[in-house]
Each structure stands twice: as C-alpha cells, then as structure tokens.
C-alpha cells in the first residue's frame, strides 16, 4: 500500500466543500422536497450555511476532538451539521434514527458525545430519556421545531437559531473557524460510524479523511462520476454507504444530493428526481419487482401479453446490449420497439429512466431480479464492501456484470484469499481503528494493514471475479462432516417473492431445518386472488395452503442444492413458517436487516428442538418489542412440515 498525497491541499470534507463553492458556485448541491416543492441550495449557498452553522457550534462551545452525534432522516441540514462539526475539528457520529433509546444510549455513552443534532421531536425525546442515565451530552440541537416549544431550552437550540447566531457572530468566530479548518490533517478522523454488528455490541469504526477522500476519488474515476450526477439520499445516514455516496463522492465529484420529503414519499420523489447514480439494497429492487408483477396480474389481457412478450425479448438481448456484445439488427429493432412500448414507460414509473450507474450490495440478489433490471437497460451492478473498507472492496466494471459474482478489486484495493477461504483486503480506505477497542482492532487488522472480512469466498479462475459463499464463521460442518453454508441456501429461498426471510439450521447436526418468514405483500396478494381469507399475519402464516406453497419452494431449492456436490448436505428436511416477521426491534435482525443467527437460535430454541424431535405442532410464546420500546407477548401454535429431499445415495457414498 502506497500512501498517496492529497490533491491540491484537499485534505478534508470542508476543504472539498470550499473548492466546490469556488469552482461550481451556482450548481445545485442539495435539494430537498418540502412543502411540495423541491428547495435547492447551490454549492455556494450550502457552503455559507455550513460555515454559519459551524460558527454557531463554536458559539455553543464545541471543542476540537469532541464527538457530535447526528440522528434523523436524510436532510440537507443534517448533512451540513456533519460538515460543520468537521470544520470545528470535531468528529461527527451519525446514528440510526430508528434505534430505540437503549441502543442510542450505548453509542452516545461509548463515544461520549457532547453535542447531539436531532431531526425532530421523536429523536429529542430519545436523547432526553438517555440523558437521565448518561452525563456526557451537553447540547442538543434539533431541526424540526414542531412540538418543541415546551421543552427546557437551557441546553437545547433549534438548528435555525444556531445558524442565525453563527451568522450574527461571524466577526467573532471567522478567524477561529478558519484556523480550525486549516488545522485538519489528512489522517484526522473524518467520521465515526457504528457497525450494526451481527454479533455483540456495535463497534465504532473510525475513518480518516484519507480513507474517505482516497476511496471517493478512486471510485469516482472507476465509474466516471461527474458533477452532473443526481443521487437520492434515502438510506440511513449512519450507514457507511450513505456517507460515501452522499458525502464523500458527492463532495469529490461535486454532484447533487436530493433528499426525499419523507420516508413514505421516497418512491414518488425517486420518480421526480430520476437519479443518474443510484444505490439500493436488493430488497428495494425485489420490492419494486414484486409490485410491478402484482400490478401486471391486474392489467388487461392485451397489456399482459405485451408485457410478457417484450420482457421475454428483453431478457434475451437486453443484458447483451448493455455489455456491448453483438446483437442482430432485427433484435435491436425489436428492442427499440419494446423500449417505446414497455421498457421506457416502466423505467419511468420506477424512476430509473436516467440511471447511468446503479449498484446493489449488502445481500445476494436473485438472478431473476438482477436480470430483470438489466434486461430493461438499467446498468445495475454489484459491489462488495464493508464499513471497515470505506465501502469498496470489489465492484463490477461496466460490461462485466453477473449476478453471482461481486466483481474485481476496486482501484487501489488488494484482495487475497487465506487458506481457510476467508477474504482479506488492504486499501487506502482501510479504517484507522475501532474506537476504544484496541483488541478488536488488532484481531481484525494485522500490522501490515490486511483486514479480515469474515466472509468466505474465492476468485473465479476464468474471469478474476470474486465470489462470496457465506460468512466465514457461519460456514460449518454437519455431523457427518459435509459442508454447511446456511446463507447459500437461505439466499436461494429468499429469491422466491413469497419468502421474505429464511434461517437455516444444521451445523453439527445430521440434517438441515429452516425457519421461513413469508412476505406479506406477495402472499397477501396471492391469498386475495385465491379467495383465502385471513385476519392476521399469524393466521396467514399458518394457513395450510401457504404451507403447501412454501413446501413447493423448499423442495425446488432442495433439488437445486442437490446439484452442487459440495453443498448437497444442506437440503432442508423440515421447516416451519414463523408466526411473526423477524424484526430489528426484537434484536433478530441488524438495523441493516441481516439475520442474527445466534440470537434467533437462542430465542426460538423450543422451535428448533421441535424441528429436530419430529413433532408436528409446537406451541410457543414470543416476546415482541414495539416501536416505542414497550414489550408484549405473542402466543402461537405452529405447524412443522416435512419437505421431500432427493435420495442421498451419492452423498453417503462420498461421506
């Protein structure tokens, strides 16, 4: 790894913002839809606002090295708070806005946050609750004034007031602020992000200016991102991806960050903005495809025919055209016609008309889903990354896109596979340390800078693309010694629209069993079409016909798993459909919706026992947590179903 020098003194986000204000003064930097209209701030305006906010922070006594927590939905003012904190020499710590008070408390206490910038009253209430137990928080700043009039304001301010105060006091603080900005070095912390952590408490990942800026520069070059891109900032601000896309890359390339009006209007806003650079986790693409399919079921027969015919053609030639492979003239002509009649309008409805570069990551994406979007001519690609790498480890170059690989190492990143199969990387984006946790830092990052990803994978010899199999620690052995890769099977199950989530058990046992979560949208629609009455999620989940349908899916997966000699042991013998959706509030998923296997295994130990002892029904009680932190108990009686597995003669012979 060679330490590159910063370009032209651009050693921090504030420096990049100042450059954009100089070179792109009137270009739109931030847009937010409010009061039904897109409000716009140019780079010059955004820079002025951010400086005023930083001076307001100085007036409130923000010191160098303080931690400033930022929690709320994506809004320009919160992005400015982050940069303003950096200008003051403080370290911003974005938090997940849907975290309950206890989760927020751990993080706020761990980093001893002195300032907390909140989006609205909901977040302020959470901070006040936390303040009863921890003392470090000195100032609370909130954006939305609604409902805040009666609060004790002795150590609380509206962001607008802080900004006004900063403007008024600029004579007093201008010099101090410039001095603080000038003192920022390339290796100072840029941001601290807490990893969601599939196991244990979250860890604070410290990323330096070097990490963020080098990574942004390299990846902007890779995809040729320019100041004319438009992105929609709708993913949690506490997630490293949003920080790279909406902060690092946006600042480096100088493109515009658009913030939706509210979480509920995201789809409408997406359509209005028509981003040219877009990131979404697979579940967003899955959700949209499910919606399209559901709506097509209700369309007139002619429209259905049109859709089917042209989609079949698109699947045949669309991906090839995207990859620049030769396609016959007739096929091209037919595709153009399809674009006019089906693909164009569909892309417009989805808000994807202008996408030049689209990424998905975080989970495996179903090949059918991936191909659907590529067939429409949307340049959807995959990347592989993690917080500790400032996102990018590998990504797919244009024209080399496949659904089962995650691409080639990103520019500047070295990747190696250990003998155990675990993937290691080293890059300019490699994190500085886990905050206040030298042990974890040492066990994750070796002295030479190689970081263990915790994922098992291999490079495909023909293409040089990386393929990820599973979490390294989840890959285990079954009782007879055959390989057990739960995620591999779960992903195959989750590719069915009816299955939202699946958890497969089998490490150290003689066979595999699974929990299934149905997708209420898809299964609910199916129930409606088939005249199946149900009054609750629980009732629908336990319906015999739903069980039959899911059994069909499981058996299909078993057939495809059996085809892979290495993983043939992972066929599912018995399964049950859970009576509730797995939820991050109950600790069953991480905030980024990854399954927390051990916690689920503990919590539903009785159900797992029933899967293996051959019983056909099991009664259980489950504790659930509501959004406000209250708890309740859910009682249910679940059925357990058997699934056919093919004869396993070959496997026994091999074992």
């Amino acid at each position, binding site marked *: 790894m060679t330490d590159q020098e910063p370009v032209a003194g651009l050693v921090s986000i504030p420096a990049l913002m100042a450059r954009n204000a100089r070179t792109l003064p009137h270009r739109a930097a931030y847009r937010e839809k*409010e009061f*039904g209209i897109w409000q716009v701030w140019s780079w010059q305006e955004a820079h002025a606002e951010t400086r005023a906010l930083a001076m307001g922070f100085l007036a409130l006594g923000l010191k160098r090295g303080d931690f400033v927590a930022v929690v709320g939905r994506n809004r320009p003012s919160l992005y400015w708070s982050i940069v303003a904190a950096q200008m003051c020499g403080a370290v911003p710590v974005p938090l997940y806005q849907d975290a309950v008070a206890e989760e927020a408390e751990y993080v706020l206490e761990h980093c001893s946050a002195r300032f907390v910038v909140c989006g609205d009253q909901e977040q302020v209430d959470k901070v006040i609750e936390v303040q009863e137990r921890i003392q470090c928080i000195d100032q609370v700043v909130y954006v939305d004034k609604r*409902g805040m009039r009666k609060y004790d304001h002795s150590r609380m301010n509206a962001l607008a007031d802080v900004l006004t105060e900063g403007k008024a006091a600029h004579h007093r603080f201008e010099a101090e602020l410039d001095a603080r900005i000038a003192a920022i070095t390339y290796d100072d912390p840029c941001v601290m992000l807490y990893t969601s952590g599939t196991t244990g408490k979250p860890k604070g990942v410290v990323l330096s200016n070097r990490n963020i800026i080098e990574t942004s520069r390299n990846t902007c070059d890779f995809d040729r991102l320019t100041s004319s891109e438009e992105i929609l900032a709708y993913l949690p601000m506490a997630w490293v991806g949003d920080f790279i896309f909406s902060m690092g890359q946006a600042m480096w390339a100088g493109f515009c960050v658009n913030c939706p009006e509210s979480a509920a209007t995201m789809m409408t806003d997406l359509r209005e903005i028509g981003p040219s650079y877009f990131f979404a986790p697979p579940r967003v693409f899955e959700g949209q495809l499910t919606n399209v399919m559901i709506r097509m079921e209700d369309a007139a027969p002619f429209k259905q025919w049109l859709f089917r015919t042209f989609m079949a053609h698109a699947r045949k030639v669309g991906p090839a055209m995207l990859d620049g492979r030769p396609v016959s003239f007739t096929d091209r002509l037919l595709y153009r016609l399809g674009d006019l009649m089906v693909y164009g309008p569909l892309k417009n409805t989805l808000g994807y008309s202008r996408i030049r570069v689209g990424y998905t990551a975080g989970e495996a994406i179903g090949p059918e889903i991936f191909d659907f979007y590529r067939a429409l001519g949307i340049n959807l690609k995959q990347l592989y990354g993690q917080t500790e790498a400032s996102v990018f480890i590998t990504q797919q170059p244009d024209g080399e896109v496949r659904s089962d690989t995650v691409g080639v190492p990103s520019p500047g990143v070295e990747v190696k596979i250990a003998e155990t199969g675990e993937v290691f990387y080293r890059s300019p984006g490699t994190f500085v340390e886990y905050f206040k946790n030298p042990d974890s830092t040492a066990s994750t990052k070796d002295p030479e800078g190689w970081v263990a990803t915790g994922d098992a994978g291999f490079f495909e010899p023909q293409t040089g693309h990386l393929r990820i199999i599973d979490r390294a620690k989840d890959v285990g052995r079954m009782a007879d010694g055959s390989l057990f890769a739960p995620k591999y099977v779960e992903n195959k199950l989750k590719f069915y629209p009816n299955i939202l989530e699946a958890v497969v058990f089998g490490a150290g046992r003689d066979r595999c069993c699974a929990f299934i979560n149905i997708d209420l949208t898809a299964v609910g629609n199916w129930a409606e079409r088939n005249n199946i009455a149900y009054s609750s999620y629980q009732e629908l989940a336990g319906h015999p016909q739903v069980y039959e349908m899911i059994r069909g899916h499981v058996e299909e997966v078993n057939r495809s798993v059996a085809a892979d000699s290495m993983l043939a042991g992972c066929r599912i013998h018995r399964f049950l459909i859970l009576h509730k959706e797995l939820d991050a509030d109950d600790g069953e998923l991480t905030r980024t919706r990854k399954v927390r296997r051990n916690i689920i295994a503990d919590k539903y130990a009785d159900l797992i026992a029933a899967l293996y002892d051959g019983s056909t029904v099991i009664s259980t009680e489950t504790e659930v947590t509501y959004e*406000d932190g209250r708890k309740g108990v859910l009682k249910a009686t679940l059925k357990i179903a058997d699934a056919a597995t093919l004869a396993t003669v070959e496997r026994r012979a091999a074992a």
Partner: protein
Amino acid sequence: MNAQIPLSSYTMTADGRKIGAVLMEMKNITLRFGGVKAITDISFDIREGEIRSIIGPNGAGKSSMLNVISGFYVPQEGEVWFRGARRPQMKPYEVARQGIARTFQNIALFDGMSVLDNIMTGRLTLMKTGLLAQSFWWGSAEREETAHREKVEKIIDFLEIQAIRKTPVGRLPYGLKKRVELARALAAEPKLLLLDEPMAGMNVEEKEDMCRFILDVNDEFGTTIALIEHDMGVVMDLSDRVVVMDYGKKIGDGTPDEVRNNQAVIDAYLGVSHE
C-alpha cells in the same frame, strides 16, 4: 413513521399563561326538536387557547351542542357570545367566516377529489378573487391560489400527509380521512376548532397520532379547540377543562381531575343502584 410519544410529556398545565380571555360563551342554551328537549338550560364558556371537551353518554346532546356553536342549529332560548359580542342568528357559512371551523363525526369529505383539493376547499371562505378571474386563472387569481397553496402545504407538512397529497380521498383508510378532515378545518385558519369525535373508530396507534396532532395544533397555532370524544383516557389527557352532559343537562364542569371526582358524573357513567 408511527412515533409513539408518551402523552404525559404533553400534559397541559392551566398556568394562566396559555389560557386567555373568554372566547365564546354559551348562556342558558335550550334546544328543542318539537317536544324533545335536546339541550336544557346549559351555560359554559370556552377560553382562548384552551382545549375544552364535551363528554357524556350517548344521546346526551353533545353533538347538538357542537351544532349550536357552529350555527347549524338555532337554540330556542339562550344566547351565544363570541369574542365579546352577542352573536345574532347566523348561517353556518357566516359562522365559518367568523373563524369557527369543524370536523364531522361521519367524515364529510369529497371522495372523488384529491387530498390537496379537499384541503384547498377549507380556504374557500378566505378567497377573494371573483368567479371570472378564477375561471381564467389569471393575474390576482393565480397569485391568490399560490398563496393559499403555500398555506395548505404547510398544513400538509404539519400533519405528515405528504405521501397522500395527490391521492383521491375515497381511496384512503379511515384514520387518514380523519386526518385530512382535520387538515381541511385547519386550512380555514380558525380561531375556534370544533372536533366531533376525532378519535372514533380508530386503533390505538391512530389515536396516539391524532392526540399528538391535536396538541401540536393547539400548541403551534394557538388554536382554541372544543372537542367531543368518547375515549375517556384521551379526554382526560388532552383537555384543560371538561363539560359533562347527561340527558341534555350539564352535570359537571371543571378540570379533568375535578370532573373525575364529581359524584354526578360517576353516577351518569357507572350508573346508580336503585335500591
């Protein structure tokens, strides 16, 4: 975003600062429908800035009382005083122009129109340009509509209904329709807002949301609110003062605590033994 916020953090204090002078006074109101006495000799007042509730069992005359306030019913006896002057007999639209807006127990929205258009109708009494200018949407009419739209958008933002702005009201679930009705009433920028069972038929989550909105309206806009409600928990948490009616008569009046301990009220709600 279904934030559930503990109601206790909002509990109002009748600290005199918030509650101002008498805004409306009902003096000895009696309302008869033929031989049936719906309301018998009731007097009470509503002060500026307060949340005033009218409660009572079914058929107690609560909705009739609200209809008297809104000018829909004309009482046979008694006087209505509004902002320090005796109110002459008025048509409902004249009452509306005076600054009194209401919602209805059985939602009265235009089903085929969008949420936005429905809320815009709330500003009808405030529109000044003539029919001709509005038909051609030209000059002052255009400027006026822009100004009204701005106000309406503030209300949409306030009640968090941005996502359904363009949705026809007929397609909305019940709880949201109630919220749109509140939005339309707010669009009239009323001095006094009358809510007829705003929480009826809602689930717990919708009720909590609605409570929050009512309190926020009272707090942010300083709107005086008179409401009828069956849910006792809601009434006791929200109200500054409560009037209790039974069989058309007033049997209690005071702060939630006073009313809760009033023997006549307890009897009316729990019944008395006749031994």
